[in-house]
C-alpha cells in the first residue's frame, strides 16, 4: 500500500460526495416553491446512498489525494456512525421543524454538509484537513443552533456556540501551528514515524501543540472545563438540533482524539495524567450539575457531559480493549441518547411546551408506551443491565481495572450511581407525579415512530448481544495510525 499515494481516487470519498450532491440539490431546489416538502426527502436519499457507499468501502484500506485522505476501517466505522446520526436526527427534525414554522430547506443542506465535515475529520491523518473538517462541521452547526431566528433562546444559543466554537478553533489552530513548527509537517503519519526524534528535538513545542489540540477537541466533546457552552446551547437550540449536537460533533471529536492521541501520540506520560484529570472532572461536574436541573434538555446536556467523561476514561486507559469499549459506548450512546431526544422532541411539538419537568407529569397515563420507552432510555443512560448503557460502562470500567486504573474506575462507577438519581427523577415525574394541569396528548408522526423503533431495538439489541457489537467495534481498530 502506498501511503503517500498521489492518486486522485474519488471512490474513497463517495460517501462524502453523495452527501454533498444531495446538499447541492437542496440548495438548488430552494427556488422551487415546494422546496420545503421535497428537501427532507432529498436529504434522506442522500444519506441512504451515502450509507450504501460506506458499505461498499467496508474493509478497504486506501489512501489518496496525496495522502490527504486515509480511508481505513477506523474512518469508515465513524463515517457510518455519522451517517446514522444524521439519518436519525433528520427523522427527528422533520415534524418538529414544521410545527415550529422553521421548516426551511436550507436546514437539511446544512445538516448534510455538517455531517460531511465530520467524515472529513475522521478520514484523514493530516492535521490541517482535520481542522478544515472541523470548520465545515462547525459552521453549519452555528447556523443550525440559531436556526429559529425569531426565538431569543435559539439565537442566543447560536451566538454563544459561535463565539465559544471559534475561540476553541483558534486554540486548535495554534496547537497545529506548534506541531508544524516542531515537525515541519502536519501529517500525523510522518510525525509518528519520527516521533522520538521530534520529541527529543523540541519537546516543549510538541507538548504545547498537543495540549492545545486536546483543548480544541475537548471543547467539541464538552469536556470540563471547556464545557460551559454545552447546557446553554443545548437548551436554546431547536430540539432536533440539540439531538444532533449531543452525538454528532461529539463522535467527531472523539474520532479525532482517538486518531491523534491514541493511535498517534501514544505513550506520552503527561497526556495520560491530563486525560485522567479531565475524565474525572468531566464525569463529576456533569453529574453533579445535572442533579438540580428542571429542564429536560438541560438535564440531558449535563448528562451528555458526564457521558463524554466516561468515554474520556476509555481514552485515558488506552489500549485496544479501551478503544473498542469507547467506540462501543459511543454507538450505544447514540442509540439511547437520540431515543431520549426523540421523545423530548415529540413532547415539544405540542404547542407551548418548553421541556420543563412539569410537562412530563401524566405522561404514563396518557401515553403508556411512550413513557415505557422513555424509561428504557433513562435506564440505559443510567447504565442498567441489560441495556446497551450497562455494557458500555461495563467494558470501559473493566478495561480500566485491567490496566490498573482502579481509582478511575471507582470514581466512574460512583458517578454512574450518582447519575441514577436524576435519570430516575425523569421516570418518577412521568409515572408517579400528579398535578392539576392536564397532560396535552402528543401527536405521533411516522418519522418519530421509526426513530423510536430503531433506537429501542438498538438499545436493547446491543444490550442483549453485546458480543457482536464489541467484535464490530474491535474491527474498527485498524487505522493507518
Amino acid at each position, binding site marked *: 500500500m502506498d501511503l503517500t499515494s498521489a492518486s486522485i481516487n474519488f471512490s474513497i470519498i463517495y460517501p462524502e460526495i453523495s452527501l454533498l450532491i444531495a446538499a447541492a440539490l437542496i440548495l438548488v431546489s430552494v427556488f422551487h416553491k415546494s422546496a420545503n416538502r421535497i428537501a427532507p426527502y432529498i436529504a434522506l436519499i442522500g444519506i441512504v446512498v451515502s450509507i450504501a457507499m460506506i458499505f461498499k468501502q467496508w474493509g478497504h484500506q486506501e489512501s489518496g489525494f496525496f495522502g490527504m*485522505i486515509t480511508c481505513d476501517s477506523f474512518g469508515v466505522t465513524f463515517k457510518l456512525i455519522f451517517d446514522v446520526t444524521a439519518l436519525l436526527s433528520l427523522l427527528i427534525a422533520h415534524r418538529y421543524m414544521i410545527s415550529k*414554522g*422553521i421548516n*426551511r430547506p436550507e436546514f437539511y443542506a446544512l445538516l448534510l454538509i455538517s455531517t460531511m465535515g465530520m467524515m472529513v475529520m475522521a478520514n484523514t491523518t493530516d492535521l490541517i484537513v482535520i481542522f478544515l473538517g472541523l470548520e465545515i462541521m462547525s*459552521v453549519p452547526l452555528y447556523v443550525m443552533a440559531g436556526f429559529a431566528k425569531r426565538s431569543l433562546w435559539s439565537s442566543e444559543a*447560536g451566538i454563544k456556540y459561535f463565539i465559544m466554537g471559534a475561540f476553541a478553533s483558534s486554540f486548535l489552530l495554534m496547537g497545529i501551528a506548534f506541531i508544524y513548527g516542531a515537525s*515541519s*509537517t502536519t501529517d500525523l503519519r510522518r510525525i509518528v514515524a*519520527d516521533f522520538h526524534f521530534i520529541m527529543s528535538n523540541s519537546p516543549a513545542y510538541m507538548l504545547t501543540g498537543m495540549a492545545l489540540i486536546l483543548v480544541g477537541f475537548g471543547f467539541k466533546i464538552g469536556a470540563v472545563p471547556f464545557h460551559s457552552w454545552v447546557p446553554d446551547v443545548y437548551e436554546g437550540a431547536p430540539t432536533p438540533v440539540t439531538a444532533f449536537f449531543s452525538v454528532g460533533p461529539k463522535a467527531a471529536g472523539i474520532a479525532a482524539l482517538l486518531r491523534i492521541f491514541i493511535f498517534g501520540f501514544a505513550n506520552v506520560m503527561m497526556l495520560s495524567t491530563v486525560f485522567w484529570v479531565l475524565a474525572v472532572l468531566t464525569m463529576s461536574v456533569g453529574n453533579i450539575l445535572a442533579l438540580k436541573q428542571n429542564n429536560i434538555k438541560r438535564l440531558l446536556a449535563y448528562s451528555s457531559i458526564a457521558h463524554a467523561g466516561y468515554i474520556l476514561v476509555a481514552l485515558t486507559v488506552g489500549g485496544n480493549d479501551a478503544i473498542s469499549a469507547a467506540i462501543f459506548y459511543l454507538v450505544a450512546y447514540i442509540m439511547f441518547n437520540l431515543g431520549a431526544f426523540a421523545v423530548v422532541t415529540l413532547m415539544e411539538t405540542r404547542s407551548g411546551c*418548553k421541556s420543563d419537568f412539569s410537562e412530563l407529569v401524566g405522561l404514563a397515563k396518557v401515553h403508556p408506551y411512550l413513557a415505557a420507552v422513555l424509561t428504557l432510555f433513562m435506564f440505559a443512560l443510567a447504565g442498567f443491565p441489560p441495556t446497551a448503557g450497562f455494557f458500555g460502562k461495563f467494558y470501559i470500567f473493566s478495561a480500566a481495572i485491567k490496566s490498573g486504573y482502579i481509582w478511575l474506575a471507582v470514581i466512574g462507577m460512583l458517578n454512574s450511581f450518582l447519575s441514577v438519581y436524576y435519570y430516575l427523577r425523569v421516570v418518577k415525574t412521568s409515572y408517579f407525579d400528579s398535578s392539576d394541569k392536564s397532560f396535552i396528548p402528543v401527536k405521533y408522526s411516522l418519522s418519530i415512530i421509526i426513530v423510536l423503533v430503531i433506537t429501542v431495538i438498538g438499545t436493547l439489541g446491543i444490550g442483549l448481544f453485546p458480543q457482536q457489537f464489541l467484535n464490530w467495534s474491535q474491527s474498527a481498530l485498524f487505522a493507518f495510525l
Partner: protein
Amino acid sequence: MNLDAVIFIISAIVAVLGASMMIFQRNPVMAVLSFMVSLLAQAVLYIQLDALFLGAVLIIVYAGAVLVLFLFVIMLLNLRTTKELGPSSSLMRHLGKYFLSFLLIMEFVFIIKSSFFKGASLVGVMNMKPEGFGTVTSVATLLFTKYLYPFELTSILILVAIVGAVVMARKDKNIDRPTENKLGKN
C-alpha cells in the same frame, strides 16, 4: 542595527499596539480601523518572512474584504454610538482575566524562548531557502497538487458560510410562519 531589525521592531510594535487599541476601543468603527492598522503591520512581517504572496493576500482579503464587511455591518446597524452598551466596567473587575491572558502569553514566550527548535535535521527540511520561496508560483503549485483536497474543502466551507449567512441575515416573509410569539422559546 540593520534595516531589517528596525522594520521588524516598528511593525511588531504597531501590530501589537493596533491589536491592543482594538480590544480597548468602545467605538466599533475605531476598533475596525485599529485592527486594520495591526493587519498592515502584520503584512509587513509576512513580507519580511518571505511570504510575499500571503502578505498581499492578507491585505486584500482581510483589510479589503473582511474588515470592510465588519464596517458594513456596523453601518447597517448604526452602531456608531456606544450608549446601548451601558457604562464600562472597572479594570479591577477584569483583573483576573488580564492575568490569565498574561499568563498565557508568558507561557508561550517561555516555551518559544526555551526551546527554539533545531529543525534543520528533520526529514524534508532544507538548510537553505529554496528558490522562489513564498512566491505565487510556489504556493500555487502546492495548492493544486498536494493540497488539492483541502483546497476543495475550503470551497465547501465558503459555500456553507454563504448559505448560513443568507439564512441568518435574510428577512423571512412567506416561508416563516409566525411562531407563537417573539419571545416564545423556539
